């Protein structure tokens, strides 16, 4: 098992040292002793060490998207609270900008987001930030539960940051709606990915979509497998890195948000999320592919 090896990208002096950690996390890039540059950028997923360093240097806004009472029981040091529900209740671009402002996130603030739901909730929030034009946002490679188990820095105090003003620059290249999906259905260069579990997919899905269950994406210790594995999964499916991929899931774009980030780390450049997902698709009465010739649910021991 390996964790994702990414971390701060530096323009110069990028010293790569392979640290072999006995356990699960190997191949980590270790930072040089040189002073870090003033505005590093994050690449989809942030590893533990990088986040700890950033926190110590006060160079990151950590966002906790669990429920508020969970946050109050303890959270990663310096983290601000943004329960996913709060974002979902107002997820038009202006409201999201407002949220960024209230969290003290300005255009060049590094943001690292975590949850306790294998990265799915964090992904949905991170995607929203990207959507309104925030560039430097990444998911923490582990869940809060794992962070805590590792005995890393947590605290209970509620963190508030002074309000800032974030610019708005909507990135429609990562967004899809029902109409977009409909047009993509018969386009061989566009691939629609359903990130729900296998049995849900078999039951019903958007016609012509393919299934990559979110359960395929994580590893034992990390919310995402290493990029080479993810890339292999995609290649096994005959998907080309140049294909455009649109992800969706059951209701609000969380599982598919995770898939969005997985595909990005695997090297697919053009990935879009259909945030309203299958729930909206069904409510619009759009066609579905159903599979009723087998009683597969009866195989589950749940």
């Amino acid at each position: 098992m390996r964790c994702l090896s990414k971390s701060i990208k530096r323009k110069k002096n990028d010293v790569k040292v392979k640290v072999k950690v006995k356990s699960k996390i190997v191949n980590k890039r270790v930072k040089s002793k040189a002073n870090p540059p003033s505005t590093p950028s994050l690449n989809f997923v942030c590893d533990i060490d990088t986040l700890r360093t950033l926190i110590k240097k006060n160079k990151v806004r950590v966002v906790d998207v669990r429920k508020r009472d969970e946050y109050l029981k303890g959270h990663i040091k310096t983290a601000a609270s943004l329960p996913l529900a709060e974002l979902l209740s107002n997820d038009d671009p202006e409201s999201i900008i407002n949220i960024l402002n209230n969290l003290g996130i300005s255009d060049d603030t590094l943001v690292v987001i975590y949850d306790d739901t294998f990265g799915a909730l964090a992904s949905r929030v991170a995607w929203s930030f990207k959507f309104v034009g925030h560039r430097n946002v990444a998911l923490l490679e582990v869940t809060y539960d794992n962070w805590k188990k590792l005995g890393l820095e947590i605290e209970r105090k509620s963190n508030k940051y002074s309000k800032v003003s974030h610019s708005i620059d909507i990135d429609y290249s990562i967004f899809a709606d029902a109409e977009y999906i409909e047009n993509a259905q018969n386009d061989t260069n566009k691939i629609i990915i359903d990130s729900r579990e296998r049995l849900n997919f078999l039951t019903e899905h958007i016609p012509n979509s393919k299934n990559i269950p979110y359960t395929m994406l994580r590893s034992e210790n990390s919310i995402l497998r290493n990029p080479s594995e993810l890339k292999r999964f995609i290649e096994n499916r005959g998907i080309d890195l140049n294909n455009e991929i649109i992800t969706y899931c059951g209701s609000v774009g969380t599982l598919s948000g995770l898939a969005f980030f997985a595909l990005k780390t695997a090297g697919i450049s053009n990935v879009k999320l259909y945030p309203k997902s299958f729930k909206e698709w069904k409510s619009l009465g759009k066609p579905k592919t159903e599979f009723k010739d087998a009683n597969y649910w009866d195989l589950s021991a749940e």
Partner: protein
Amino acid sequence: MLNTILLTLAKSIDYDVLSSAKNKELETNEKWGLAEESEYFANKVKLYRQDKLNADEFRRFRLQNGAYGSRLNSEFSMIRIKVPGGDITPTQLEKVASLSESFSIGSAHVSTRQNIQLHWVQLEDVSEVFRGLAEVGLTSREACGNTIRNVMCSHFAGVCPNEPFDTTPYAKAIARFFLRNPICQNLPRKFKFNFSCCPEHGYVRIADVGLVPTVRDGVRGFRVYLGGGLGAASFIGHLLEEFTPESRLLSTSIATIRLYDRLGNRENLARNRMRYLVSEIGWEKFQGLLLKERILVEATISIPTRKSYDGFLNTGDLNNISISSTSTKSKITLPVINSNSGDTPYTRWLNTNVVAQKQSGYYSVYITLGAGDITSSQLRIFAECIREFSLEKKARTTPQQNFLVRYIKADQLPKVFQKLSGNGLGNPGANTIVSTVGCSGTTSCNLAITNSHRLAKEIQSKFLELNVDLDKDFVDSSIKISGCPNSCGQHEVATIGFYGGATRIGTSMVPIYTMLFAGSTGENGELGKAIMRVPAKKVLDVVLKIFEHFKKERTGNEKLNEWIYKISNGNGPGEIKNVDDMKNLLLPIIELPAFSTAPDFYKDYGTDTNFVAKTARGECAA
């Protein structure tokens, strides 16, 4: 530099906390899997998808590697993981758990031939599952297709009070010897070995080669049964000779396979198992040919071949723990723990799921599953349980679609129960009729007509609700259900067996089961006899009616299986003397109400639409 090392060390301690599989046991099982076969499979899938490999060729390749096509949907596969001898380690179970979670449906399935199956895996992910399996030494290679299937071994082998010796190493050596062996890569049809531990336990009469261990003049050996097997037409195996010394096990096996390979029917798909060859040329002739073939094999077998087998046998022996056991002269039945006191969940479990081993002070514990299904999280708990409580740190799959964990000390049993039952794994009834067997049926199999899988689960939960496990009269009886006549659910060796079909009642199609009586396993195993047909939704009522009359009419302490046996032979002790009496008793019960008033009776379990029998190519002989 030193700093880095220290840091690394500190970190390694930290990060280990995240590893659920810390304190991994030394891997005690053999390595069956090969990582390169995964990549090879992935490439073949790509070629097939690009139309560079034709469908037939690809299908044969896929089956040889252990992946069946899923029901009416060729995008998905069922992967049959071989568990040679049924022997599996916690690390392997944990891997199965994570592979199921990632690529399958989050549950795994223990099969009637001790395999573990992952269903509805996308064809493109099959190679990933293979990769993971190889990491822990497992393989699905030759689990399907026309080759040597999983070699079965009684789950009591090594702990059974009546066994002359532990047959596990022999089962594994045979499995190891034939895996990837050129002599069995393209047989006329599949070929099955079953080892027992004693005359009672084991499925030796329904295999191509069934072996019962025995000792003569201090020499280990077997009674070898050939040409048995279940299917649309089933046969009981024939005894080759009174005694086959262990030194001739390999040559006898090779000779059988060579003979079958040469003479077996390659034309007629429906008659190409070895049992048809035996029945066509007659047992005496087959036997004569075989004994001659064996002489030939023994004269020509090369030293390296012999040595490789001996090597496999020795490693198998080393891998087994040995604890001195009380030697047994006369046959005794496996003692079950009897607590007598009341019917708390714990005592119910003790009564039916815990068996004393021949090693005094040690017990084996059954995990009763529902038709063999277990979730990934349950598998993980189970793996922990094995590590924590079993001296041999392994478990066995059983042909009743359950697990058995062995070498547990008496004082640990309450803790074992607590751990299991807290996670839905503490159901009682393993050695009684409660533990119903059901093949995959319409949940995944192309040939299925009925949802045998769900029916098995329905019956089991009804029995648990009715506390059937508490009643000693139902110990050693079984219900086994197949979704079509092919017998994957082994309905012909059940006390009460069922296989699925379809019929028309009035103007509607109805799922219906043929009920069989008095099948049995073991060295004296017999095939069940067909009694009558029962609509799917009436099966439970029929079974309960049979129970009711059994209670009324049996004599003395007769158990259900004994009573049923008498009836099927026309010697019923009460009013119901024979099969016809039984039919007359049950006919009123199987009457269906009019479709218009009760449409549900015309549907199968697990479906809310009207019943239709849909099947596709079965791939049972590709």
